[in-house]
């Protein structure tokens, strides 16, 4: 199957074939998503990617939170991508290849329209030379807009989504809508995760998982250390938190090789 497209103006998008080629080199693409902002998607994506890389998996992390990228800050990535004949070679930390808009915007404001975001997602997918990977984790932004709709088109075959929520009715409500959109895009839903959990047996997260017929992958307890020091923890410190312990169980439940 080819994604090559031709619009009414007789225009071909050169990025489609590059995206198809790049994605064909990746065994599993996992969108870490959740709909609502502040539920911990970025921290979970970055920590999970680091765990997978440390467990000797060829792993990449693509930060598509275009208005608020945080992967580089969370993982201490500072090097620039390197321009090559294969595209843009992403910087590497502990074997993990990281690509983020922040490597180009350098902490500057990101006032992007919907059209601009679609273009940037395509450009990053087409021009990032991740090479062969076992896993590519994608840190998705809040919402169900251009970034999600654009990447969904390309990752149907090798992709799946882990949906993150907190145990509040507000976040769970948005997660439910997100699940409907992911399904409509024919994306596999790997499962639902309750972050910042209080282990309440009446949690609306499990109820949502049942109602939507989605696997419940586990609970990650609220970790006060992370709320005060997130983004300032070293990688070893990050992986020694209660949060990281619980996340490892979640990833195992999702069938990922973290040991």
């Amino acid at each position, binding site marked *: 199957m080819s994604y090559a497209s031709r619009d009414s103006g007789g225009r071909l998008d*050169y990025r489609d074939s*590059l995206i198809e080629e790049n994605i064909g080199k990746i065994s599993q693409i996992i969108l870490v998503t959740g709909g609502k902002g502040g539920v911990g998607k970025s921290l979970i994506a970055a920590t999970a990617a680091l765990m997978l890389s440390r467990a000797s998996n060829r792993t990449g992390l693509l930060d598509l939170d275009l208005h608020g990228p945080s992967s580089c800050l969370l993982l201490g990535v500072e090097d620039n991508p390197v*321009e090559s*004949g*294969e595209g843009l070679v992403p910087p590497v930390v502990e074997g993990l290849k990281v690509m983020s808009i922040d490597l180009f915007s350098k902490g500057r404001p990101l006032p992007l329209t919907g059209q601009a975001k679609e273009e940037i997602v395509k*450009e990053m997918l087409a021009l990032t030379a991740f090479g062969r990977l076992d896993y590519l984790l994608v840190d998705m932004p809040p919402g169900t807009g251009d970034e999600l709709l654009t990447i969904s088109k390309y990752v149907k075959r090798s992709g799946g989504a882990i949906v993150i929520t907190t145990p509040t009715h507000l976040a769970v409500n948005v997660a439910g809508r997100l699940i409907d959109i992911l399904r409509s895009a024919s994306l596999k839903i790997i499962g639902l995760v309750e972050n910042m959990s209080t282990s309440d047996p009446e949690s609306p997260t499990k109820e949502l998982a049942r109602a939507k017929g989605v696997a419940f992958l586990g609970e990650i307890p609220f970790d006060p250390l992370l709320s005060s020091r997130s983004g300032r923890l070293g990688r070893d410190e990050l992986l020694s938190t209660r949060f990281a312990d619980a996340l490892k169980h979640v990833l195992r439940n999702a069938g990922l090789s973290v040991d």
Partner: protein
Amino acid sequence: MHEYAIARGVVESVRDFSLKSGCGVRSFRVLVGELSMLDTSVLREALERLIAASAVKGAEFSIEIEPAMISCGSCGHTMTFGEAISGLSEEEREMIHFLPDLIASYAACKWCGSLDLRIVSGRGVSVRDVVCVEG
């Protein structure tokens, strides 16, 4: 240097078009947005080399620069490429070379100072007007 990767995408997209439509390709145009600041001599050399080794061998092409026009979403002022990038350092221009939409991160409206900049034209690379071999 990532001109080579772009050239690969261009040739693949033309080849895909040829396969799908069942037509041999006589020629096509490559429009290069001014904002992408691509090196067109490198792009041309890469395209020539890749086309010669591909299923669309013999296809001719032209490379044209599409002038950039950037408008301010706040006051409506429009800027040319030169106006928009004036005052930017070499390193800042390189970041826009990689991701043209970052113009709004590095430049501001020259009239009102807003960062709400929208690219009207001259953004990236597109392949236009693929002409099939007759008969």
